[in-house]
C-alpha cells in the first residue's frame, strides 16, 4: 500500500512537472508602416496562449493595447497552420529593397527551432494564410493584423 502510494505520488509529480513545461511554440508578429507616419501593430503569443497586443502610431506612442488568452485548441490550429504554410522553408526576407510602405515580421519558435520572416510591400501566400488563421482566432478581440 505504502509503495502504491509512493508510486502514485511520483507519477502525479511527473505529470505536473510535464504539464508545467512550455507548450511547443512562441510567436511574435510586428506589422505596419515602414514610413515615418502611420500605425504599427505588435502581437505576441507565448507558449501558454497568452497574447499581448499593442497598437502604436508614429509620433504618438501606444494608442491601443489588449491582453487575452487563446485556447490550447486555437494554439494547435496556429501550430498546424505554421506547418501547412511550410513556414520554416520560407526566405528570411521578401522585397526588402523597397522603401516606406508596410511590412510584416513574424518569428515562430517551436521546441528547438526558430524562424524569422519579413515581407515588405508584397504578399506571400504562405504568410497570408498564417496571418489569416491568426486573425480568425483573434477576431473576437476586435483585433486584425494588417500589413
Amino acid at each position, binding site marked *: 500500500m505504502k509503495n502504491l502510494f509512493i508510486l502514485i505520488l511520483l507519477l502525479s509529480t511527473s505529470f505536473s512537472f510535464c504539464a508545467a513545461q512550455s507548450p511547443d511554440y512562441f510567436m511574435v508578429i510586428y506589422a505596419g508602416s*515602414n*514610413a515615418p*507616419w502611420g500605425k504599427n501593430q505588435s502581437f505576441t503569443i507565448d507558449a501558454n496562449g497568452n497574447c499581448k497586443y499593442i497598437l502604436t502610431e508614429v509620433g504618438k506612442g501606444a494608442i491601443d493595447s489588449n491582453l487575452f488568452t487563446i485556447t490550447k485548441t486555437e494554439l494547435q490550429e496556429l501550430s498546424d497552420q505554421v506547418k501547412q504554410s511550410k513556414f520554416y522553408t520560407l526566405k528570411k526576407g521578401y522585397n526588402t529593397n*523597397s*522603401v*516606406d510602405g508596410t*511590412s*510584416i*515580421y513574424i518569428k515562430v519558435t517551436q521546441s528547438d527551432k526558430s524562424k524569422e520572416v519579413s515581407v*515588405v510591400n508584397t504578399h506571400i501566400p504562405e504568410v497570408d494564410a498564417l496571418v489569416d488563421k491568426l486573425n480568425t482566432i483573434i477576431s473576437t478581440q476586435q483585433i486584425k493584423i494588417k500589413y
Partner: protein
Amino acid sequence: MLGKILSSIGFLLCLCLNVSAQLKQGTTVKREGCTVYITLQIGVESDSSEAADVAMLQEALEPCWPMKCDMPCADPRKKICKLASRVIIKKWSEIRAADRRKYHHVKIVSGQGVSYVNDLTTPNTGKSSGGTWYRHEYSPKVYCHETLHLCGLPDHYRDCRANRIALGVDNCKDGDTCTAAQIAAGACPSCPGYEDDCLGNDVTKPFSCNNNLMEIVRMVHDYDLVCPDSCCELEEDDHSSTSLQLIPTISLDAGLAIYTHKNKNFPDFNQTYSGYNINIGAGIATSITDKIVGLGTLNYNYSSTSHSDENTTGGTTNQNNSTIRFGRLSMKFQLEYELTNDFSVTAGPEVGALFCAKAKNYGTSTYNGMTTSYGSEEFSKITGGKNIQLGFNLGLRKDVNLGNNAIGIGAITPYFNFYYPITNSLDFAGNGNKMYNINVGALYKFTKN
C-alpha cells in the same frame, strides 16, 4: 554630289539631336553651363484616370519641384554655381514602350495604404525605379518625400519600430541605437542634422539644398558636376587678376576629301576628285561665356584625291587617271556653342596656305586597236600659283567631358566637321578648283596649370 552630302549631314544632325531629347533614366544629374540640373522623369499609371492623377501629382510636387540652390565654389570670395531641380511627369500609357525604362514607373491606386518606392536607384546609371502611391495619403507632402527616394536617397530618421529593427534598418549609420523608451513608443527620431529635413521624421518639411539636393549630386561621383572654375568668377571688388583660361588643345580628324575642278571656258567640264584627308591641329581654347568657347588652332591638312574617266572622241578612247595632293597649313578660328547637355555646334573661318601641291596625270589613248600611254605615274610639283586658302568650318561636337571645369581637364570631344573652301585652291587662270573636307575626329583639351 555636294548637295547630296549636305542633305545627309542635315539628316544626321537632326537624328542626333532628336535622340538626345529624352534623358536616359528616371533620375539624371547633369551640368549645363554653370547650372547643375537634377531631372526626375516619372511615368504615372493609374487605376482610375491617368490624366487626373498626373495633374494631382504635378500639383502636389509643385512646392518641392522645381527648386534652386547655390553651389559654392572652392574660393568663398567667388560667385556661385546654381543647382536646379525639375520634374517631368507623363502618363505611362503615352510613353513609348522603348522609352519606359527611362521613367520611374509610379502606380497611383485607390484605397488606404502607405506609399512606397520599389528600390533606391543611383542617378545616371541607366536605371529607373518606381512604386505604388496611394491617391489619398497622409499628406500631399508624402509625394515629395517619395520623389527623393526615387532619386536614390534613403530615409534620415532612426527607426525604432520593432518590425524595422527586426529587419536591421539603420538609417542614421552613426553607431547609435534606439533607447528602450523609443522602442516601446515605436518612435522615429530624425537623424542628427536632419531635424528639418523632408527625409527626417516629418515629411511636411521642405526640401533641403544641402541635405537633399546636394546629396543627390554627391551620389553621382562625377567630377563634371563640381562647380567649374569658369563659372566661379571673382567678385567685382576683388583686385586680384582675373586670369583668362587658356587651355591647350590638340585635335585629329580624318575623312572624305572632295576636289572639284571646273573650267570656265568649258562649262561642261566638271571633274570631281574624291579621296581622303587627315587633319592635325594644336591650339588654344578659352571659355567666353558659360555656353560659348573660343578655339584657335594651327592646322595641318593633308588631302589626297583621285579621279578616273574614260572618253571616246573621233575613234580615240582616252582613259585618264589623275591624282592631286595638297598639304595645307592654316589657322582655324572657331566658336563652340553648347546646344544641349551633350552637343555643341562649332563654326568659324579658316585661313591658310598651300605649301605642298603635287599631282600626277597618266593614262592611255587607244586608236585603231593601238594603245599608247601618256603622262607619268610619278607625282610632280604643281608650280602654278597657289591662292590664300580661305574657308569656313561647320561642325558638331559631343560633350564627353572627363574634367571638372567648363572646358574640362583631359576632356575628349568627338566631333564631326565640314570644311567649305571659299577660295580656289590653285590659281588656274580663274578655273574653279576647291578642296572640301568632311571629317570626324576628336579634340583633346589639356589641364590648366
